[in-house]
């Protein structure tokens, strides 16, 4: 295809959008909604996963040792605990420290006589797990260790957050799939309208010997432009939307939220890619009918 032809065909693509602007606008609107929803789903997944990770990092499980265990034995047990799978760190928490922590909270008088050998508290370890979803099996492993008396129960919040994170990821995936199908349908419908209004030109093009590829190009370009414009608008909207929502969320629940700018480039790449693919595919689907027909059949005469 010559340069002249290509320039001409691109111009025709733009003209199609302008001549069919109400329909183009409608499909850009629908596509933008689809992309913004998709982007929101991605942002939600990213942030919920981020929060769960943050909570996991803070989530310390306490392992209490048997009463009669000496400090030296406790250090030895600590080495065993650290070797257990899924245990990231095991920090020794001696009973002296525990009692002074109680004393700080409850006042000097209460625990006055409970220092040294009279300390009724056991030695303990603070354990951080790598993956909270494997909490139960890890606890079983911890209890098997000689000298371990008890393991503190898990934080309810972390448990709920983990299942929420899974739910959000699965839901986001299906929302994105559904929206992709809708977008494809919308674009192909728009292009079908354009083709219908151009059926006369198409019949002339074919009668003077235009190849199918040539007839097709302006419509594919139209689809791609609609896709790209929608991608641009939705990225702008998401930028503003995510910023506002996250700011509001920070007031309610103070977590380190992932801002839009941090995940922006992959999203932009995905949107532009999706815009081009959906635009091209959508238009190719609707062109078929006109390319397999000849002469007056195209015009329906």
């Amino acid at each position: 295809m010559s340069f002249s032809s290509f320039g001409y065909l691109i111009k025709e693509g733009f003209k199609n959008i302008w001549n069919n602007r109400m329909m183009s606008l409608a499909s850009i609107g629908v596509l933008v909604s689809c992309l913004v929803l998709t982007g929101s789903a991605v942002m939600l997944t990213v942030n919920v996963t981020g929060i769960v990770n943050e909570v996991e990092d803070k989530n310390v499980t306490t392992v209490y040792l048997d009463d009669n265990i000496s400090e030296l034995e406790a250090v030895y047990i600590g080495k065993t605990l650290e070797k257990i799978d899924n245990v990231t760190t095991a920090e020794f928490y001696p009973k002296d420290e525990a009692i002074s922590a109680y004393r700080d909270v409850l006042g000097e008088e209460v625990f006055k006589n409970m220092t040294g050998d009279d300390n009724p508290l056991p030695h303990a370890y603070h354990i951080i797990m790598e993956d909270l979803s494997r909490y139960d099996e890890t606890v079983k492993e911890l209890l098997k260790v000689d000298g371990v008396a008890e393991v503190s129960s898990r934080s309810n919040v972390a448990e709920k957050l983990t299942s929420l994170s899974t739910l959000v990821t699965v839901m986001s995936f299906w929302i994105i799939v559904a929206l992709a199908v809708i977008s494809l349908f919308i674009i192909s419908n728009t292009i079908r309208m354009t083709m219908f209004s151009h059926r006369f030109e198409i019949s002339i093009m074919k009668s003077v010997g235009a190849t199918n590829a040539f007839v097709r190009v302006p419509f594919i370009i139209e689809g791609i432009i609609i896709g790209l414009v929608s991608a641009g608008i939705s990225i702008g909207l998401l930028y503003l939307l995510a910023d506002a929502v996250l700011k509001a969320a920070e007031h309610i629940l103070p977590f380190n939220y992932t801002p839009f700018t941090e995940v922006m480039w992959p999203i932009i790449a995905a949107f532009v890619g999706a815009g081009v693919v959906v635009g091209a595919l959508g238009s190719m689907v609707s062109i078929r009918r006109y390319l397999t027909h000849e002469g007056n059949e195209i015009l329906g005469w």
Partner: protein
Amino acid sequence: MIEFKNVSKVYSSNGAHALDNVSLNIEKGEFVFIVGSSGAGKSTFLKLIMHEETPTRGSITVNDMHLEKMKRRKVPYLRRTMGIVFQDFRLISKMTVYENVAFAMRCVGKKNRTIKKRVPYILDLVGLKDKAQDHPSELSGGEQQRVSLARALVNNPAMIIADEPTGNIDPEMSYEIIELLSEINKRGTTVLVVTHEHELVKSFNKRVITIENGRVISDSGEKETFVAI
């Protein structure tokens, strides 16, 4: 140029026999009228030449291409060897005369530079140099048909096929259009004119093929050798 050998066409939709065992031969550089009443099979004849339809039986050769087994993607290259003029002109109303003619060149991928040189030349040839920037609606029927003819000619096809070119224009203009086609024919282009206007045909001394009920009932220019077969 065009060769039909025992061609029959039966439409599967209604079982109508549009063409029945037609054999004929049109040589390069000829000027031929195809006449017959409506429904006689003239349109089918044209559709077969343009490969809008395929024959039920028989073989068709157009410009050295065998149509009965032609692949779909080759069809555009067949169309480029023929310029088609329609009864209803088929001009794009929102384009100017110039653009309508240039459109045909764009469709086959010609360069802008070539288009700029060729279109004015062709418009001059059909006598519409001054109307280049007019829109079809501003022209008379005869002028519109000349634009249509310019569009058919612009890609320099080996033949021109005119389907009832005078059907929508007044008799004086009709005469002019056929004159113009005759002029183009003298430059070496094969011309095929389908019409039902016998008066018009009579005033030109050209080969006339008459089709009735799907058969060729007379052919004024049939070669002796062809008759012998």
